[in-house]
């Protein structure tokens, strides 16, 4: 879809500087449109949320296969009903909307049976359930509610996606080695000895390594915001979501 044929709201969103068109605004604007932008946006949204959805369902007592089917079914249901269009940005964050929709979906036996059938017959996404299932089984907080688990998976997923993009970008710029050496400093400020040790490998002074680590943190921070921006409907929400993400990840459950 060329820019000139995009709905007005998409172009409007794209003009918002760093806050570009979000997956959600694209999905909303596209309605039932099957254009490549809309499809990609839907898929991105599903990718960002399927792990939280799966873990929520598992925590609610669903079996492995049931949860797999329900996850596919839930997203199929959203698309089929064009439920994305029902989400009103003015009424709250997309994450909350999704969780509410999921609760209803899980409780709606009839609708679920219909969409599970549909989803089962034509999987929306190729999802690596085994990995997620293993992570679910190793979850250290077996007493956390499905909602808490949903948020934790969502928050970790945002960081993972930001890190993956950072990695990919470093790779593209032939700086993978630098990424590998510096990524640990995302989790902790290095000591002088650690910066010196990494400097040995990267042929840089410890001060330069410290600086590069600082830049990488800046970069990562921007990417996390960008990831969140893709999943919300307005710039103001990004800060809110970031705050929520920090609380979720630093408070355990």
């Amino acid at each position: 879809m060329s820019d000139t044929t995009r709905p007005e709201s998409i172009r409007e969103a794209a003009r918002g500087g760093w806050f570009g068109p979000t997956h959600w605004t694209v999905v909303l604007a596209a309605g039932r449109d099957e254009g490549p932008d809309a499809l990609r946006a839907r898929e991105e949204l599903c990718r960002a949320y399927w792990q939280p959805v799966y873990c929520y369902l598992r925590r609610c007592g669903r079996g492995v296969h049931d949860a797999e089917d329900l996850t596919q079914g839930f997203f199929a249901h959203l698309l089929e009903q064009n439920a994305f269009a029902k989400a009103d940005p003015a009424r709250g964050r997309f994450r909350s909307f999704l969780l509410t929709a999921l609760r209803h979906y899980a409780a709606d036996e009839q609708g679920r049976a219909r969409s599970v059938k549909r989803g089962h017959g034509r999987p929306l996404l190729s999802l690596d359930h085994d990995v997620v299932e293993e992570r679910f089984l190793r979850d250290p907080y077996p007493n956390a509610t499905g909602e808490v688990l949903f948020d934790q998976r969502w928050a970790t997923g945002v960081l993972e996606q930001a890190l993956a993009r950072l990695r990919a970008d470093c790779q593209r710029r032939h700086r993978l080695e630098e990424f590998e050496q510096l990524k640990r400093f995302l989790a902790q400020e290095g000591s002088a000895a650690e910066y010196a040790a990494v400097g040995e490998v990267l042929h840089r002074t410890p001060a330069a390594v410290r600086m590069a680590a600082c830049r990488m943190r800046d970069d990562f921070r921007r990417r996390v915001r960008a990831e969140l921006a893709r999943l919300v409907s307005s710039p103001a929400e990004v800060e809110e979501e970031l705050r929520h993400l920090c609380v979720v990840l630093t408070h355990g459950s």
Partner: protein
Amino acid sequence: MSALPRCSACGGWLDERALEGLCPACVTRTTLIEVTAAGQPGAPRPFTAVQPPEEAVSRDPEAGKFGDYHLEVELGRGGMGVVYRARQASLNRVVALKLLPPGPFASEELVVRFRAEAQAAAALQHPHIVRIHEVGQHQGQHYFSMDLIQGRSLAEVGAGSALAPTAAARYVRLAAEAIHYAHGQGVLHRDLKPSNILIAADDTPRITDFGLAKRLSAESDVTLSGQVLGSPGYLSPEQAAGTRGMVGVASDVYGLGAVLYHLLTGVPPFQADNLSELLRAVIEEEPVPVRTRNRAVPRDLETVCLTCLRKQPATRYASAQALAEDLARWEAGRPVRARPTGLAGRLFRWGRRQPVPATAVVTLAVAALPFAGSLGLHRLGVWRLERANEHVYIRVGHDLFRTDPLGRTWQPLPIQGMHVDVSPDGRRLGYVRLGRVYVSRLDGSGERQVAGDAADVRWLDRDTVLYEPTDLTGVWAVDVHTCVRRQLFDWKAITPHGIHGGLSLSPDRSRFAANPQNGFDVPTQDVLVCDLRGSSVGTVWADTPDTTMDACPVWLGGERVVWCRFARPGVDVSETAIVAARVGDTHYETLTEWGDIQYPVAASPDGSRILFVKTFPGDDGHLEFWIMDADGGNARRFLDRTFPRGGLGILGACWWARSPE
């Protein structure tokens, strides 16, 4: 369900397959919970997830009541807390009360350390230091109370415009005297900036926030990335670079110079659009000369200011008192002692901060391999060391070179490593690379890793190397064949605050010499000597209280130690000299002239000779290698070497080993 490992930093559960093995909680704390440098243009919106102190206060059912205090008015807030005017009920006095954010106190140990430092600061009694009355905790909120100063800070006084040079010099002179007093009490400020200097009703300065904010942020495990730096425009290069061991008296001298710069020009020495750029500038760039910004500043005062702001701590004023005295000279219309840096000097400094990787670090190892009676020959003044088959090992950047003490050969070695030591049988090398200990044959073949997390390494015998972990907590021994390791001792069992780094083993490999620190990252004047079990054997005391010494003394034979002093007592601008002292003595003897940088130092195993490297302002990248007798006589240059675009960069330790064969 298989158990998840725990994060070694925060103790939280860690799924090693998620987020590339990084701990999401630690990443969040380190990278996302940030407060950007206040007021930096273009900085992203400040954001904090820790509970703001005022919320903690407002939860109190009696609004405004905080323990023994009644909070009246908020006076200001910064990265590390909020300051209120408060009335202390029990004493019915008005004080300034600073409430610290709860975030940084993640562990008991940090609380203990913070309180220890706060109490040290509370012990300071000086007319130009804001007195701390009480350090405490109320409902989990840490606070301290201090004198309430009715007046403005230098940040407000000097906001946007320059002060008269005489006024600026007077404020900074008085502040420097106060800082010098604090240094004498073993307390560093670490965060001098105009907003931390208040001007009281009598128009004299009162320094506040001694060491506290910096200690908090530097040690905190919730690293508030912008806050660590507080006001990075005033931060010394060694702090900006995180060169922990280098932070000391000279860092506060830098801070005073930065304040003077601001008062004279209206702006901090360095400004940038973002934090990374600012840190880079602090470390790498020279400040715009004061007179370029304000022609009204006299040349001598500019020289004083820029002397404080030199990148190398050793080339600034040796103490805050020296700065105060030079300012007093200027105020009295007498010539100052500081000398402006010439073009050559500026080039030299530039070269030192722009080292190509190959010259970023020079450490030097001298190995006297099969030693055949050179002792005595040099006393004739004839250096016939080629008979002794001695070798000098030199590390330049990552690369190791071997030469001989006549400087005739220059041979690159096929290994890379930080610290290098030759095994007692002269057949193998031990070295640290990427924080790990490796051993290999002399030609680099057969390299294998024998230990991790190491800062320094020494051979103990043909089967064992000793190493020091990067946190400098103690000494470990590892068997190079089996990699079985054991801790010999913990430094803190011998000296309360541990050591300042470096592993110096006596030639007979029976004792260590080390430089204890005082708990504030400042090296003390002592040299500690202990045996391999960590039993304290003796101490050498250097006799000048106002200077710091090089991190690691080197053994000079079995009973003396030698090191490079970075400050000449009684001289304002630092010079270096090589000094030596006998274990148990309280005085050292100066072996060389005071002057240009003479570092690193190595001593021969028999204690008869000392080797050192000289660099000279203007000789960009030019190194001279010297040998002299143990008493300082018979000094002789044996090798010159020039490295492209680089001087010494960051100086390391050096050592000398030899084969008994």
